């Protein structure tokens, strides 16, 4: 076990299919045309000295170290900027080159501190390596002259420091910020000797345009940009490749360790989802794993008003099991259930649903995807035949028109957003459908061609109007439809779409989007060579979430934008394993692989494998569980890694349901909001402390590797196993790989998945079976999974949640870059510095008529409840619309949201709530009393003296 060293080829790989053969130092090599001499040499194992070149960036040719001699060519060209040519003969080492390189290094070192022994980059410094490589023994120029050795450090960023005294001005950081991240926050200030890296207008990193993605730190060849954790702890000694536990992009990281301590997380270049890039969360915000708030001992209490009592694992597990059995004995076997976690691994999720179906003997299992992407599952399954996105992330590199609906990737899925922005800078066109002016609508180097700033709740009408324009203007791809869909079904749907109420002019009236904008956007998407749709929770979290997903699928089929690279329908999944948790049978009506529980054959597979008989009746969804709790028929709940009291809508309803239950078992890292209503607390463990797999938004199954022992003693899968055994349902897995083997043998779409296969292939996109032994990057090629694509009529029905004189504004909710979901993790890291509290965005006009000034406390009231927070006045939102995030429990944003939900899946309507905003002088009574209860319920009784 050592450090994983990735080869830096110096320049990017060429995608050319034409091959060129050349000779480097007497060795012959064949590489694709367009490859640099430097890269070709590296592929041969020949290291040409370099400083400004790195294979994440375009070649630049400024450091003058990589000079080579090429027979028949004058001078000494830079190998990073010189492409290979047929028959070329290259010499990378000779006396002349050695002298040139040594001379260049002398100049660099003449303005660089000689403190290698005490430098944080010692042993991981390219400048040091190059001094060695060129045999630098002295610096003739001395240090008497002007230099930069006294330059001051910028320590403003909480995670890394900038020490310009060590900078060699290679511009790798500036280029990484531009090319990889697409933020353009850095520049070189001045020229010549006074050149210096500068964030913004000579600002500090923290207050500049920097988004702290870490690309610059990774690109820096010296200690100029360095993680503070490395400065504090020293260089790591071993590393393991694992998968980020934040959003659904699923970035691959090297966890670089000292013993059992993480030194830093470095994005892994071989990661197929992120290709070596990262965001502020995955790269830096992992400190929560060892935060002092973390609970590591099991606790129980008989009433939620009692303080917690720390007990042994045995006592906690036995107590939970005996309570569940007691409740079932008294109220029947359907009186308990559980919630799986989209933060836990596939194996853990699979085990929880198995415990519920086989151990509890019912199908009362649900997951947080209920409140995010359940309409995606339903809608895409119905139209295409699979409950998942159609593409891999690499697909965006070939998109020509990108339609983003109800998603804010620069904040929610930042690493994918960087990919998308890169494609946009290459000239792809962009349409954004969002009530708010997100960064994709307009931010440096991004300017949407069309922004459909619709009134919240009118998605279906807008998407149908796009189809209306496409059909009525003859832009439909009829060949594709005839070939891959049912023409009669299409004709019926087209009739419906062509009705006047779907025309842009009619839709303008209800959505507020000008008809001409709708027409322009429709033409752009329909006429692009490759049109791709990306959407997020702004589509699903509506009473018509499923209808919009159906309408989107129709739109893609209508234009033939399915089944190849560059196109497709792509839900951007919120959580690290929300795709996986859905795949693993977390829904009350489906076994793993989205197979209905009423299916005889599938039930037999599991009955045989598990040795029990299983219920054919779908179980309760989360909202139904809470309703049943209020009715006194559902009294026990096992919640793994999920915080329904904060994340689910209509908090008061949730709290009422939880309070009515007799045994709530919460398994989590922290005493979360749901734990305030729990009787048993089972401490969970972080992604760093267990083995398993996560599945990202592109259906990519990736390994999570244990790099430290669980602080709580057990992996989450082991805890579920202990609970199952205590309930009398025998489980004897020795390792999560055995759970994956069970998943593979019972689910055809995972048949080819195993830890061995993952080791071999790095990652696998399901379906993976005999038809696709290495997985499936792009789905529905040549034919839909369900056979023929199905056009489903999805008509616009306005939500029941309407504005009126009492609640004249529409509230919609979203996310911010530095925080993640309910903030349980990110609030416990330095990321809190970027976003200390949730703010209410309100348009200047709406603020003015209410007498609200920027930063004022305001009361936000809806028909469901009221809360208070500070106002931020901005024209990012349209008049009549207000916006907030839900990262902080104190805000209680979900006290406001209603219990309206999607007609098909019960996915809550977070994105539309009629509200009123008025000036206020502080938190509401509910917030104060909730926080008081929350503080009280987190008490842990001191252990009595012996």
């Amino acid at each position, binding site marked *: 076990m050592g450090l994983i060293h990735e080869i830096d080829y110096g320049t990017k790989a060429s995608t050319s299919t034409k091959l060129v053969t050349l000779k480097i130092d007497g060795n012959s090599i064949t590489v694709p045309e367009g490859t640099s001499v430097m890269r070709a040499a590296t592929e041969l194992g020949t290291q040409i000295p370099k400083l400004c070149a790195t294979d994440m960036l375009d070649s630049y040719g400024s450091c003058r170290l990589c000079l080579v001699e090429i027979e028949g060519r004058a001078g000494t060209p830079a190998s990073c900027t010189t492409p290979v040519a047929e028959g070329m003969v290259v010499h990378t080492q000779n006396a002349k080159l050695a002298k040139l390189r040594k001379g260049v290094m002398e100049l660099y070192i003449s303005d660089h501190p000689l403190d290698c022994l005490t430098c944080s980059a010692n042993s991981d410094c390219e400048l040091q390596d190059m001094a060695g490589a060129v045999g630098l023994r002295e610096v003739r120029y001395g240090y008497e002259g002007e230099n930069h050795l006294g330059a001051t450090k910028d320590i403003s960023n909480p995670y890394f420091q900038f020490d310009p005294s060590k900078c060699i001005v290679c511009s790798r950081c500036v280029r990484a910020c531009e090319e990889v991240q697409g933020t*353009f926050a*850095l*520049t*070189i*200030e001045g020229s010549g000797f006074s050149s210096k890296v*500068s964030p913004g*207008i000579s600002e500090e990193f923290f207050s500049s345009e920097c988004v702290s993605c870490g690309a610059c730190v990774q690109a820096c060849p010296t200690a100029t940009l360095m993680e503070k954790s490395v400065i504090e702890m020293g260089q790591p000694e071993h590393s393991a490749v694992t998968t980020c536990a934040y959003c659904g992009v699923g970035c691959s990281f090297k966890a670089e360790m000292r013993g059992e301590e993480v030194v830093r997380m470095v994005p892994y270049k071989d990661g197929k989802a992120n290709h070596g890039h990262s965001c502020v969360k995955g790269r830096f915000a992992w400190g929560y794993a060892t935060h002092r708030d973390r609970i590591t001992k099991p606790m129980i209490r008989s009433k939620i008003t009692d303080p917690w009592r720390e007990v042994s694992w045995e006592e906690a597990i036995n107590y939970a099991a005996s309570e569940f059995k007691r409740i079932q004995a008294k109220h029947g076997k359907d009186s308990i259930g559980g919630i799986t976690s989209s933060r836990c691994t596939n194996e853990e999720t699979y085990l929880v649903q198995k415990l519920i179906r086989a151990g509890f003997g019912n199908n009362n299992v649900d997951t947080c995807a209920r409140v995010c992407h359940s309409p995606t599952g339903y809608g895409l399954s119905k139209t295409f035949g699979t409950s998942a996105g159609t593409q891999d992330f690499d697909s965006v590199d070939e998109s020509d028109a990108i339609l983003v609906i109800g998603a804010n990737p620069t904040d929610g899925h930042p690493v994918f957003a960087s990919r998308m922005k890169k494609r946009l800078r290459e000239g792809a066109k962009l349409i954004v459908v969002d009530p708010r002016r997100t960064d994709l609508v307009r931010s440096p180097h991004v300017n949407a061609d069309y922004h459909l700033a619709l009134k919240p709740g009118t998605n279906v009408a807008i998407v149908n109007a796009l189809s209306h324009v496409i059909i009525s203007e003859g832009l439909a791809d009829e060949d594709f439809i005839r070939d891959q869909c049912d023409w009669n079904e299409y004709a019926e749907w087209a009739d419906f779409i062509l009705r006047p109420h779907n025309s842009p002019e009619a839709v303008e009236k209800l959505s507020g989007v000008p008809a001409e904008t709708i027409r322009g956007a429709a033409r752009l998407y329909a006429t692009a060579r490759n049109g791709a749709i990306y959407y997020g929770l702004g589509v699903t979290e509506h009473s018509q979430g499923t209808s919009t997903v159906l309408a989107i699928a129709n739109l893609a089929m209508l234009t033939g934008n399915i089944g190849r690279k560059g196109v497709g329908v792509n839900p951007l999944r919120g959580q690290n394993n929300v795709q996986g948790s859905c795949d693993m049978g977390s829904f009350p009506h489906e076994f793993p692989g989205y197979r209905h529980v009423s299916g005889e054959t599938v039930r037999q597979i599991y009955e045989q494998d598990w040795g029990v008989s299983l219920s054919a009746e779908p179980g309760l969804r989360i909202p139904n569980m809470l309703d049943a709790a209020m009715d006194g028929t559902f009294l026990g709940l096992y919640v793994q890694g999920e915080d329904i009291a904060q994340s689910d809508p209509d908090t008061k309803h949730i709290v009422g349901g939880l309070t009515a239950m007799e045994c709530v078992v919460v398994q989590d890292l922290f005493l979360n909001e749901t734990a305030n209503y729990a009787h048993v607390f089972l401490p969970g463990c972080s992604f760093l402390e267990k083995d398993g797999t996560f599945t990202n938004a592109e259906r990519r199954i990736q390994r999570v590797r244990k790099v430290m022992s669980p602080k709580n003693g057990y992996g989450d899968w082991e805890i579920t196993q202990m609970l199952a055994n205590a309930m009398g349902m025998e489980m004897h897995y020795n390792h999560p790989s055995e759970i994956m083997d069970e998943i593979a043998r019972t689910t055809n779409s995972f048949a080819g998945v195993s830890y061995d296969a993952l080791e071999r292939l790095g990652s696998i996109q399901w379906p993976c079976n005999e038809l696709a032994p290495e997985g499936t990057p792009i789905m529905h090629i040549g034919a839909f999974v369900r056979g023929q694509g199905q056009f489903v009529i999805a008509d616009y029905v306005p939500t029941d949640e309407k504005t009126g004189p009492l609640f004249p504004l529409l509230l919609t909710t979203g996310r911010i870059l530095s925080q993640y979901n309910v903030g349980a993790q990110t609030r416990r890291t330095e990321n809190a510095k970027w976003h200390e509290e949730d703010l209410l965005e309100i348009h200047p006009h709406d603020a003015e008529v209410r007498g609200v000034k920027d930063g004022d406390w305001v009361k936000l009231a809806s028909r469901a409840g009221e809360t208070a927070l500070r106002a931020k006045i901005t024209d990012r939102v349209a008049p009549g619309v207000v916006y907030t995030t839900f990262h902080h429990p104190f805000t209680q944003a979900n006290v406001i949201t209603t219990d309206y939900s999607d007609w098909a899946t019960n996915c809550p309507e977070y994105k539309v709530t009629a509200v009123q905003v008025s000036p206020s002088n502080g938190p509401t009574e509910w917030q104060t009393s909730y926080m008081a209860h929350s503080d009280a319920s987190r008490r842990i009784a001191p252990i009595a003296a012996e």
Partner: protein
Amino acid sequence: MTRDWNPEAADAIVAAHLQLEGPLLPILHAIQEEFGYISEDAMRLIANRLNITRAEVYGVVSFYHDYRQQPSGRHVLKLCRAEACQSMGGEANAAKLLERLGVDWGGTTADGRLTVEPIYCLGLCACAPSAMLDDEVHGRLDADSLEALAMEAV
């Protein structure tokens, strides 16, 4: 005379150049012409209108010596310090003038009338030492004619 910072006027200047391909340099020239220098406010405004970052604008402004980030004196005298002018005694002339005016390179006289800046080659090597007062070039200067030139401005 240049005028005080005025975002509306700056906006109009930017708007007038937007049809150009690569409008940043001409905009910066025009802004400097109008306001005498390119303030941080101006950089932020230009960045916003061109939809680029303030880092990018600042990188360009700070790269070129001709863009100033502080107001200059009413007149600007640029003295060539490149090789040809040095070899013809330009440095000695310059030292004398700076002493006479009581300013250093880049400095402005106390009355705010004259800023003296170095420049590296005006392309007038054949008539070195040379200088440029505002937009007008002067060659074959000696200490006296240079002082006389400076005194025109002061």
